[in-house]
């Protein structure tokens, strides 16, 4: 879908991209990085709008340096910033932009009606954009990126400025762009938790360099563990410690959660999941000790934790319980 090979972009004072090499497969791909990591610069190069200092990139098999117009015909782009004139309606704006993508007038109107409906804008689409909420504006921005039925869309920070509900709706919509519309998505964000739910693949860049690129399932699988919290009792004034020794004696890998600052975090034990029988062993151990089980829940490894260990391999606390050998 996208092949980036040794791509660099240097401005007089900063290096935005530094010999970036990564392949992006069809599906939903998250491009993660802090502000200024080079995400937007990369998108501009991939759209053929900004020449790379060195290296090459191909989008849908087309060279970004020489076939920019052909790429932009097949690709949609949703900018990060506000880009909608307030005095026109969503319909007028999207029809106009559909024609700017080369759609004939009748097709532009038809596609606009379809696309606005798919992103969830109904009667309000005839009202001036100036009166829209942030969530509705983001939908219009998304609609203009989809109206010409691209094969791939670049979404630059689509959840920016949205409240939690709006964020969830936007993420669900992004997921649907791939599953229902069959359009591949490259979505940038600086929030890792969002991408974990939405993306098939995550590419992390920092300071213009590739930190990591792999499937989301790689990040989160094989790190299963149980978070267990128990009460204290008269026989075991420190129930957590008693359970810790009991489970260790039973041959399970147990660690304190180490989540500092969170309420009750000192009382949570993380038990390595060896298999289905682990649940029974924990249950039996708690029952034998006569403690109350406050909670027992499955924990997935958060992408953020993976990145912390990747980014700062020497920082002990960030590695936590999943890789005791590395410490």
């Amino acid at each position, binding site marked *: 879908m996208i092949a980036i090979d040794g791509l660099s972009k240097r401005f007089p004072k900063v290096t935005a991209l530094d010999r970036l090499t990564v392949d992006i497969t069809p599906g939903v791909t998250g491009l993660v990085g802090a502000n200024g990591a080079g995400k937007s610069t990369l998108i*501009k190069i991939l*759209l053929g*709008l*900004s020449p790379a200092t060195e290296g090459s990139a191909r989008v849908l098999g087309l060279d970004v340096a020489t076939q920019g*117009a*052909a790429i*932009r*015909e097949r*690709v*949609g*782009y949703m*900018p990060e*910033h*506000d*880009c*909608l*004139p*307030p*005095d*026109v309606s969503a319909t*007028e704006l999207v029809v*106009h*932009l559909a*024609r*700017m*993508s*080369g*759609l*004939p007038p009748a*097709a532009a109107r038809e*596609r606009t009606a*379809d696309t606005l409906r*798919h992103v969830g804008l109904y009667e309000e689409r005839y009202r001036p954009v100036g009166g829209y909420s942030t969530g509705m504006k983001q939908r219009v921005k998304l609609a*203009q990126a989809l109206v*010409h*039925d691209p094969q791939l869309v670049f979404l630059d920070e689509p959840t920016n400025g949205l409240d939690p509900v709006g964020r969830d709706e936007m993420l669900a919509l992004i997921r649907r762009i791939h599953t*229902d*519309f*069959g359009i591949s998505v490259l979505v940038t964000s600086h929030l890792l938790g969002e991408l974990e739910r939405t993306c098939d693949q995550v590419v992390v860049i920092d300071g213009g360099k590739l930190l990591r690129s792999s499937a989301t399932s790689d990040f989160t699988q094989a790190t299963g563990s149980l978070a267990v919290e128990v009460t204290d009792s008269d026989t075991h004034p420190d129930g957590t410690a008693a359970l810790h020794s009991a489970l260790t004696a039973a041959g399970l890998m147990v660690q304190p959660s180490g989540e500092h600052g969170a309420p009750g975090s000192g009382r949570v034990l993380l038990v390595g999941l060896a298999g289905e029988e682990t649940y029974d062993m924990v249950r039996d151990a708690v029952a034998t000790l006569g403690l109350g089980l406050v909670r027992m829940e499955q924990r997935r490894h958060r992408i953020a934790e993976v990145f912390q260990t990747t980014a700062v391999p020497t920082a002990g606390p960030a590695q936590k319980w999943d890789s005791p050998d590395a410490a």
Partner: protein
Amino acid sequence: MPPESSLAPAQDVIHNIGYRNYTGARLGRRYIRRSLYVQSLRGAYGLGRSAKSKVLPMILFAAMCLPAAIIVAVTVATKANKLLVAYTAYAPYLQAVIGLFLAAQAPQSVSRDLRFKTVPLYFSRPMERFDYVVAKFAALASALFILTAAPLLILYLGALLAKLGFAGQTKGLAEGLVSVALLSLLFAGIGLVIAALTPRRGFGVAAIIAVLTISYGAVSTIQAIALARDTTDVIGWLGLFSPLTLIDGVQTAFLQATSDFPGGHGPGTGAGVVYLLVVLGLIAGSYALLMRRYRKAGL
């Protein structure tokens, strides 16, 4: 066996037909350029925009045509043997109206896209910088041409109605049209360059009015001083420094116009070549500056 679907669902159900891919034509840059041109040209007269934005351009258009209609009426009524105003003199008489139209519509055409950062939405599509600049430039020049040529057509039709000589009137009209065409290109270029400098529409409006009136006022004043001091040979050259006097110079030299310069000291054919070159240079320069302006705006 009849399939289950033969039990037709109720008629009032709205079916979600799901996402449909687009398999129709994708027209190229020529179509895109033409669409943007038409949209911008209509926009200059407020068409396809809110009712409020139609008011000013329509009033100005009426203000531009009304004097021509009056002139025609007077010519027909008095059975005069020529029009009261020459074709080439009409636009200079109503320069204030043209200036207002330009000041209102040039920022409308380009400042909005800059101010609301809509420009990246254009440049993330197949079009290139060239397409955007050419479409906007051509649209504003066409809007000005419609504004300035329409009253000339009214004069011409009126002149034919009054049975003034057909050949002479047609030649006059042709000269007038060439003159306003040059004027439209020159004014559109200057207006767009100024408007594209600022995303603030108000600044654009003020700056365009200022450039047009101050340059014209300064040139006229200095020309008047030159006339008073009897240094008449300078008068012809001073006209190079304001858009309207440039057009005056060109049409005086080549289009049989009577110069509005003080004392009628317009440039001769030799100086007229310089005027024409400066006008063409300014038009080309405006285009080059606009291309430069949008080199970075796509990002």
